[in-house]
């Protein structure tokens, strides 16, 4: 039987004096691109943070790669963290390193590859995310927002993760850059066999990339279905969310 990559059952989160999630259930299959959407403050990022072990859920079971996150020892947690990559909303590139060093950083830390091979591998990732090779020796502050996002994506896939998290990947990019980034997301999934979970508000991007979309509202996942079907959903919260389109 094929095991889902992510399985959340009955997750509850109590943060800052209120219940953010009352009952979240979600499964993500291998190889799919799933987006989590919902109004501001509905707790999308909190779901992402729970999955990344940055936040311990108040109750419920969260399984990633079939392993329950709540009873991992530090060694197992360490092993698990190497199997995913995360692209932060504001890129979070290390400003003291150039792009190539940023990409090579996790390789340096975790592997004993020889330096030339590591550099070739980093340049490969750079090419995969569609950055010109001259960008390799530039520092993050010398790149435009879109290029920073791509460089951050290259760092996120540096260790060939099986699972990639994206937090609002196209926010703040111009429309053309955003569409190119959509293509990149699908390309990465197809070429590297990734499973991708993203948080996004960009309807166009959701239409272009996702297989299924999970709608968060009222502390629950209200619906998980392809975006076209979701937009026709009659739930008042969902209708409200899409009312501008």
């Amino acid at each position: 039987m094929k095991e889902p990559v992510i399985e959340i059952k009955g997750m509850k989160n109590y943060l800052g004096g209120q219940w953010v999630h009352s009952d979240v259930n979600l499964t993500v299959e291998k190889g799919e691109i799933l987006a989590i959407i919902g109004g501001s403050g509905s707790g999308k990022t909190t779901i992402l943070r729970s999955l990344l072990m940055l936040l311990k859920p108040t109750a419920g079971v969260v399984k990633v790669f079939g392993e329950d996150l709540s009873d991992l020892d530090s060694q197992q947690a360490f092993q698990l963290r190497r199997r995913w990559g995360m692209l932060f909303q504001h890129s979070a590139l290390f400003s003291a390193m150039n792009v190539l060093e940023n990409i090579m950083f996790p390789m340096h830390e975790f592997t004993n590859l020889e330096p030339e091979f590591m550099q070739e591998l980093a340049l490969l990732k750079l090419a995969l995310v569609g950055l010109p090779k001259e960008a390799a020796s530039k520092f993050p502050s010398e790149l435009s927002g879109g290029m920073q996002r791509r460089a951050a994506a290259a760092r996120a896939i540096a260790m060939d993760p099986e699972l990639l998290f994206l937090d609002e990947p196209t926010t703040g990019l111009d429309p053309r850059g955003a569409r190119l980034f959509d293509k990149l997301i699908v390309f990465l999934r197809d070429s590297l066999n990734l499973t991708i979970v993203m948080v996004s508000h960009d309807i166009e991007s959701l239409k272009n990339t996702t297989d299924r979309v999970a709608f968060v509202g009222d502390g629950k996942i209200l619906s998980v279905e392809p975006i076209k079907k979701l937009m026709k959903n009659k739930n008042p919260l969902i209708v409200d969310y899409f009312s501008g389109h």
Partner: protein
Amino acid sequence: MNQNGAQINFIEDEAKYRCQGDWTVLALGNLSAKFRGAWLPSSEKLVIDGKEIKKFDSAGALALVTCVDELKEKNNQVELHNFSEKQNELIDLIESKKEAITYKIPAPEKKNILYQIGKESENKLIQADGLIILIGDLCVKFFEAFGNWRRFQIPSIISNIFSTGIQALPIVALLSFLIGVVLAYQMGLQLATYGANIFIAYLSGMAIFREFAPLITAIIVAGRTSSAFTAQIGSMKINEEVDALLTMGLSPTELLVLPKVLGLLIVFPLLIFWSDIFSILGAMIMAKNMLGIGFDDFLQHLRDSVGLSQMMLGIYKAPVFAILIALVGCFQGFRVQSSADSVGSQTTKSVVQALFLIIIADAIFSIIYSWMKL
């Protein structure tokens, strides 16, 4: 060796390379270096068999492509067998990006020493220019504020007095007390041999009022306040808060620098006085224990031989130190560029420069006092 490590072995009778294990970034190790170092056949028809590869990712594919290239360089014909469709796709993908992978990063240009000296001098001049502009701006804002009292930012001054003054009281007291104890102990050793015990009050009083109290206060304030100013303004700059003030037509100098300078100006003399009290207390306790001089005798002697005038000479240094510390802290804060590294390096610079300037200023005070025969 790791059982799942990637391996590639030559089977000579079948003219075949057999790949085994996980060909992933974590398990790859120095496979391609080993392969390059090993003996390679030439001008043969070779097969690379991928049947026993367990896991295969882009790093593995890159390693495989590197191996194939090595073999092709020796005029071998290479065929890949038993690779799955996905694996072949990955290999083709690597092949298509080959031009980018073999890119040699140009080494950064080496500048000659004359250029570096010139560049560094230019930087220092620009820095000095910036500081002068800040001082000028500050003076203008200060005198303009007399026209409208609200522009003095009284609440902000008060909060600065609290954070730079009130919160520094315990540490200033403790360090001053210890300095007083140490000072009296060292002097007491010498004085006791001459039987001039009572002079402890005069000697320690002079040293504490004129030098030690102002200096120790300045060092503590430079360490905790100048760095705090730099970090605060620096992170505001990174967060574009400084730009936000500018676009609203407000002056960062008036809102951020002026209250800090004024707050520190008010609180610094008080801190020196506070330090005077505790240093003298330390010296007094030591004098009683070591030299048997009572508190009454000590204080009376202190008043008669040292007096208020010497204490004021120390407190006169306060405004200079306060302005130096606040200005250096704020100035370095404005010089922060948009990176986390920059906040750290500017904070270091602000503390080092503040200490440097304080000691220079203290030396100048000594010269002036000796000219004036004080």
